[in-house]
């Protein structure tokens, strides 16, 4: 169990109060090495993949408005390409469509709160951006890729 009983209770309450529409977390993990090794070696290709998967499983079980899809980075290569996934663990947050929201790594500490925040926004299908910002976004002529490097506290 990743979450304590208290945490589960708190998160369940939060989700009940804030979620509106369905959110799907598309999660990418990897449990086998990417290459064929000549000898049998115990290798973990992704240190935090299993823990992250467990965390997301427990989280999505706390609300029927949250769905989880799990894919393997190697075996489900076409899905990984579809979502533009380049590393694991990784997740995409989807509402009624793919908004282009990705998270790479295990969302622990402060990053877990940030993930919940993102889930709530996606679930509400609306942002709190100003009209000025929305105008800038409407005027974009090219694609914009934003990478934000974070670290757990």
């Amino acid at each position, binding site marked *: 169990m990743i979450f304590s009983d208290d945490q589960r209770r708190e998160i369940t309450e939060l989700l009940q109060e804030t979620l509106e529409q369905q959110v799907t977390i598309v999660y990418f993990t990897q449990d086998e090495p990417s290459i064929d090794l000549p000898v049998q070696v115990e290798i973990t290709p992704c*240190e*935090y993949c299993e823990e992250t998967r467990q965390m997301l499983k427990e989280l999505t079980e706390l609300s029927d408005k949250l769905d989880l899809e799990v894919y393997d980075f190697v075996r489900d290569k076409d899905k990984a390409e579809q979502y*533009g996934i380049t*590393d694991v663990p990784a997740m995409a*947050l989807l*509402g009624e469509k793919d*908004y*282009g*929201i*990705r*998270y*790479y*790594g*295990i*969302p622990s500490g402060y*990053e877990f709160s*940030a993930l919940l925040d*993102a889930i709530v*926004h*996606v679930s509400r299908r609306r*942002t*709190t*951006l*100003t009209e*000025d*910002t*929305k105008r*800038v*976004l*409407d*005027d*974009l*002529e*090219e*694609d*914009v*890729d*934003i*990478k*934000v*490097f*974070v*670290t*757990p506290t």
Partner: protein
Amino acid sequence: MAYQMAMESDKVMAQAIESAEFPHLAQRYSVTVVPKTIINEQVAVEGTVPETALAEEMRHAAGF
């Protein structure tokens, strides 16, 4: 904030990357302070970026 930008526009993709787990990426982008925001591989901003500043940087990066 970046996620909200991605929600608002089909042209925007926002990725959060945990630095400690992806040291090769942190190194590639010279991440010494977090958060660090990279826009279109061209513009880098250290520290939390307020909404108006992020929108401005995106405007520059998207070429107009």
